[in-house]
C-alpha cells in the first residue's frame, strides 16, 4: 500500500500548489495533476471503470478551463466583509461536522462487513443481469433509476446552459 500513500502525497502537494500559485494557467495545470493522480489511485485500487471515467472527464474539463475561461479576469475580493465571510464559513463547517458526526456514528466500523451489500450483487450479476462486468450490470440494471436520474440531471444542466449562453436575446 506504499503506492497509494505516495500518490495521495503527490495529490496533496499538487492541490496546495494549485491554491497558492499566482499564475492562473499554472494553477489549472496543477489541478490537472491532481486529477491524473486520482486516476492513478483508482488504477492502484483496481477500479478501471472509474479510472477511465476520471481520465476522460479530467481531460475535457482541463480543455474547457484553458480554452473557455482562462482569459477572463476572475474577480478576487480581498477586502470588504472578511469578518462575516470567515464567521459564515467557520459556522457552516461546524454545523457540517456536527451533523456528519451524528450521522457517521450509526455506520458500521471501518473495515467490518464491507462485503454485506456487494456480495449479493457479485453473486447474482451474471444470472440476473446477464452481463459479465459487475459495474455495468449494477449501473444499468440494479440501479437503473439512479442512472436515469443522472441523465435527467445532465439534460437539465444542458438546457440551463444553452438557455443562458445562447446568442438570441443577449443584445437586449
Amino acid at each position: 500500500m506504499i503506492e497509494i500513500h505516495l500518490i495521495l502525497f503527490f495529490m496533496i502537494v499538487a492541490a496546495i500548489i494549485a491554491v497558492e500559485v499566482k499564475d492562473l494557467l499554472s494553477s489549472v495545470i496543477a489541478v490537472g495533476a491532481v486529477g491524473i493522480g486520482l486516476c492513478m489511485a483508482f488504477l492502484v485500487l483496481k477500479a478501471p471503470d472509474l479510472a477511465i471515467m476520471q481520465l476522460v472527464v479530467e481531460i475535457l474539463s482541463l480543455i474547457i478551463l484553458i480554452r473557455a475561461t482562462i482569459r477572463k479576469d476572475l474577480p478576487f475580493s480581498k477586502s470588504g466583509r472578511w469578518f462575516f465571510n470567515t464567521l459564515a464559513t467557520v459556522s457552516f463547517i461546524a454545523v457540517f461536522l456536527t451533523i456528519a458526526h451524528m450521522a457517521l456514528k450509526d455506520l458500521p466500523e471501518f473495515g467490518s462487513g464491507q462485503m454485506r451489500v456487494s456480495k449479493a450483487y457479485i453473486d447474482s450479476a451474471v444470472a440476473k443481469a446477464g452481463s459479465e462486468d459487475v459495474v455495468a450490470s449494477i449501473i444499468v440494471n440494479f440501479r437503473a433509476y439512479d442512472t436515469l436520474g443522472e441523465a435527467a440531471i445532465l439534460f437539465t444542466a444542458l438546457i440551463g446552459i444553452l438557455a443562458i449562453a445562447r446568442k438570441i436575446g443577449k443584445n437586449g
Partner: protein
Amino acid sequence: MIETVKDGKGMTLIVKTVTRLTIGFILLYGIYIALNGNISPGGGFAGGVIIALSLVHVMLAFGKEVALKRLHSYAMRFAISIASLVFLYVMMSRWHGTYSHIVIPLAEMVIVSAGLFAIFVALVLLSKSDRDSE
C-alpha cells in the same frame, strides 16, 4: 498556441493533418468503449465523453465553423432530445430484454457526447463574445 487559434482559422497544417488521420479512430474507440461496457471496463458515459473530446479536437484544430458544419446545432439538440426520450422509455418500461444492453449505452452516449460538446461550444462562444465587446 492558443494565440494563433484566436485570430486564424484553426491551428497549423501539421495539427490539421494529424487530426484528419486520427479522428476516425477516436470515434471508433468511443463507440467501442460504449458498446463493450457490459464485458469490459467502460460504459455509455465514458464513450460519450470520448466522442465529445473528438468533436472538441476537431473544433480546436479546424476552428468553430468546420466543427459546427459537421454537427449542426439543431441536429445536436434533436439527437439529445430523441436520445433522452429513448432512455426514459427504456428505463420506465422496464424493458431489460434482448437489445437493452445496446440501446441504453447508445442513448447515454448520444446524450453525454452531444451534451458536453454543446456546453463546450456555448462556453467558448460566450467567452469570445465577451472578449469582442471589450
